[in-house]
């Protein structure tokens, strides 16, 4: 009796120990911070992991690829109106676009061939960094960064290795969509969602779940820009009809709603407004379905190998150098703590910010990952650890609700560092309203300007809001207005003969598309992360709002 009991208890303890021992390393950062890690390994592991998870086929190089669809029409070549010089500098920015990275023979890459400009994670060949996004990528820095895709593709055996654990915890993996089946652009024209008078598009956003944004604000302004455009006569005589879905802050749900919008609603393209995991999951589904997908820049892991994904602002990794410049030259701080949500998709942002900070001589005194659904105890402890670390600046990349809790708990401990981070949603007005005074003078990069600057940048926004929605305009409207306006530039440039083929041909033609709300973007057959600037927002707790402290800024502006 006694021995059976002992065996039973021993088995339970053994199971507990095994489950603990089998855990994956939550972050590469601790080791990177001590300089003890080979920076190349995690990128290759991540690529292998994603390739394995999503079973993405190796592509054929620089062609624009599309699936073969049964809906056929004449695939006539589409004249593409000239829009802007591809190398035009962003408005307000002193940093011109970087030289393009060299062509890569394979598409199975984590970053470089898809990158726009020269972001901090640039796995590009050691090209001169002159002015490239102002990121100051010196040759010696490039040498230490993840190898270019071209180099990786030279050893296919390494790509064939089984997926290894990612350098971070895996709370909720995006579900694996079916393997994509692609044909080159010369196929028959695909006009799904397009009629003589309308273009139907799909938008998803985490209204519910861990990102508590006001549902009504998003629903109100989901098609504001398109209504305004209809007043102006539409785009080549067509009006845009928006289908909106809540992805519930869940990658699984995101794929479901995107599938619904693609297969039932027959949308022409998809837009993801926020939520890195959801955007990644949905973009990968869209790739498999042959549907173009747009979002503000988020992570690069999991997106860099997609043909049909286009970031309309800088990715988190691309923003690293600008943030480092801000910390070093404007805030004049040296001791940094880094707190990133444990989503595996954010590993690349973590790696690149760490690299950029250390390369600039800044000292990372603490780095940690917090759960996507962090508990009170976790955030209290994290705040206490940040205080004990003595960091002057805390780089945060997490959902707004957790950021606010962390800042509130830190303030309760009389710890008020400068909070900085890449954007999208932490720069929303609701964060300042709920987080002040705890967030102090937090500074976040953002793809869109705040209400104090929108009139200068786009005088149409406020009148359109008043005409179609009424009341006081909000920044959620600007977020959606900006993406829509950027995409409109592409539709406009495509012309009247709209198909997915002609649309993608225009999109990847190397032209620069200017919205003057979101950063200028430029894509070609390799670049999918096509922005080189961001807006800088600074919290103003006297009015519980964000001020636009810099418009279209880059590293060189600091």
């Amino acid at each position, binding site marked *: 009796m006694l021995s059976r009991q002992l065996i039973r208890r021993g088995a339970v303890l053994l199971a507990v120990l095994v489950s603990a021992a089998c855990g994956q390393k939550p972050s590469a950062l601790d080791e990177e911070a001590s300089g003890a890690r080979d920076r190349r390994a995690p990128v290759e592991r991540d690529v292998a992991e994603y390739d394995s998870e999503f079973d993405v086929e190796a592509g054929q190089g620089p062609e624009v690829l599309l699936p073969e669809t049964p809906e056929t029409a004449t695939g006539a070549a589409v004249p593409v109106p000239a829009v802007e010089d591809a190398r035009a500098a962003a408005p307000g920015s002193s940093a011109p676009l970087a030289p393009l990275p060299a062509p890569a023979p394979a598409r199975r890459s984590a970053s470089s061939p898809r990158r726009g400009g020269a972001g901090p994670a640039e796995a590009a060949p050691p090209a001169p960094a002159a002015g490239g996004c102002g990121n100051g990528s010196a040759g010696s820095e490039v040498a230490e960064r993840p190898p270019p895709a071209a180099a990786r593709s030279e050893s296919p055996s390494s790509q064939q290795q089984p997926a290894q654990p990612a350098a971070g915890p895996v709370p909720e993996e995006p579900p694996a969509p079916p393997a994509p089946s692609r044909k080159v652009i010369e196929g028959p024209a695909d006009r799904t969602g397009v009629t003589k008078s309308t273009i139907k598009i799909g938008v998803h956003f985490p209204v519910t779940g861990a990102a508590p944004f006001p*549902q009504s604000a998003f629903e109100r302004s989901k098609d504001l820009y398109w209504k305004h455009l209809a007043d102006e006569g539409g785009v080549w005589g067509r009006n845009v009809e928006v289908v909106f879905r809540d992805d519930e802050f869940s990658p699984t749900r995101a794929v479901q709603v995107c599938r619904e919008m693609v297969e039932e609603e027959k949308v022409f393209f998809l837009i993801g407004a926020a939520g890195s995991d959801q955007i990644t999951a949905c973009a990968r589904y869209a790739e498999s379905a042959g549907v173009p997908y747009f979002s503000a820049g988020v992570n690069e892991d999991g997106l860099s190998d997609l043909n049909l994904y286009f970031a309309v602002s800088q990715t988190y990794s691309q923003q690293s150098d600008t943030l480092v410049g801000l910390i070093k030259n404007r805030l004049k701080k040296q001791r940094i703590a880094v707190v990133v949500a444990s989503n595996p998709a954010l590993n690349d942002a973590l790696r690149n910010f760490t690299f950029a900070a250390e390369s600039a001589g800044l000292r990372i005194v603490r780095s940690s*990952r917090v759960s996507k659904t962090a508990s009170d105890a976790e955030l209290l402890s994290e705040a206490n650890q940040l205080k004990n670390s003595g960091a002057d600046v805390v780089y945060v990349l997490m959902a707004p609700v957790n950021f606010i809790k962390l800042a509130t708990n830190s303030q309760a401990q009389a710890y008020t560092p400068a909070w900085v981070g890449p954007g999208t949603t932490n720069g929303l007005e609701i964060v300042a309203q709920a987080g002040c005074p705890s967030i102090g003078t937090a500074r976040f990069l953002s793809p869109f300007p705040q209400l104090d600057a929108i009139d200068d940048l786009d005088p149409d926004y406020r009148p359109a809001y008043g005409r179609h929605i009424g009341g006081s305009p909000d920044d959620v409207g600007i977020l959606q207005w900006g993406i829509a306006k950027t995409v409109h530039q592409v539709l406009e440039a495509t012309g009247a003969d709209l198909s997915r083929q002609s649309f993608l041909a225009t999109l990847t033609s190397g032209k620069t598309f200017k919205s003057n709300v979101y950063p200028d973007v430029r894509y070609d057959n390799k670049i999918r992360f096509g922005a080189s600037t961001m807006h800088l927002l600074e919290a103003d707790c006297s009015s519980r709002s964000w001020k636009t402290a810099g418009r279209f800024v880059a590293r060189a502006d600091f």
Partner: protein
Amino acid sequence: MRRGVLASVALAVAIAVLLIAEGSQGRQTLVIGVVAGSGYGLVALGLVLVYKSSGVFNFAQGEFGTIAVFALWAAHSAGVPYFFAMLAGLVAALACGLATERFVVRPLFHAPRVTLLVATAGVALLAIGVEIWLGEQRGRYLAPALGRLDRVSVFGFRVSDQRLLVIATLAVLAVLIALFFSRTNLGLAILGLSQNPMAAELMGISAQRLSTFTWAAAAVLGGLGGILSAPLATGFEPGFLTYSALIPAFTAAVLGGMASLPGAFVGGVVVGVAESAAVTFPIFADIPGARSVMVFSLLVVVLAVRPQGLLAPRSVSVGKAL
């Protein structure tokens, strides 16, 4: 039972001494654990109350709290002073508890306990749906009842007045309810009904009346948990207490012993300390989701070694509910 309780207390004291001896980090971990765990304990208290009286895991306990928070927020937003708005919240929770008892629990009074368990889960989901329907799915922000942050500092960790209020409320309620069940006729009647309903009814105890009382009390406890912990969470949204506190509270209740009210307090603190340690100590840095691993490892060990929980008599086990 006494030997087990003494062993549990000795273990808790030993862990506390170890953490204090470890240095300032350990001491702060202990304080954070107690502070954060009190919130779990408050929700666990309501769970234990219902379980103790009816042998049911009440999945709707979190929603009693969320409804109270919504009512508090609505009343305060309408200009009602905070204290009276809190009362409005408690009244809303009470109404919800009474409605649950009348329309869900009472019709299923003689059904198997597992049926009632599923019914409470249904109540929780219904409540979340109604909250979304009436209040829109978005975050709202609630100011604390007590705003001062720096009155008390323990081992260098500042404990806000709101958190002190949670700890004090939890400690007082745990003792009062324990006394209620051991020293009052009503409490003993509820216990008797729980252990043998037929015998209790033959003794003249009204099962329905006691059921109403129990669910009303549990709803008020849930409401109290909600209105005290929502300001600490910075914001709330439909289902917030169910999503954020129900699982840790269940863990706390099981750790403490599902039939022990002081055990809910102890269990909450243990869960809080475990989470805090998992975040703080470098030894856990390489374990993804260390917080959850720590808490659930602890739960498995306690269930294997002492399935009745830390402070409950051996005759009561969680298996009774099913």
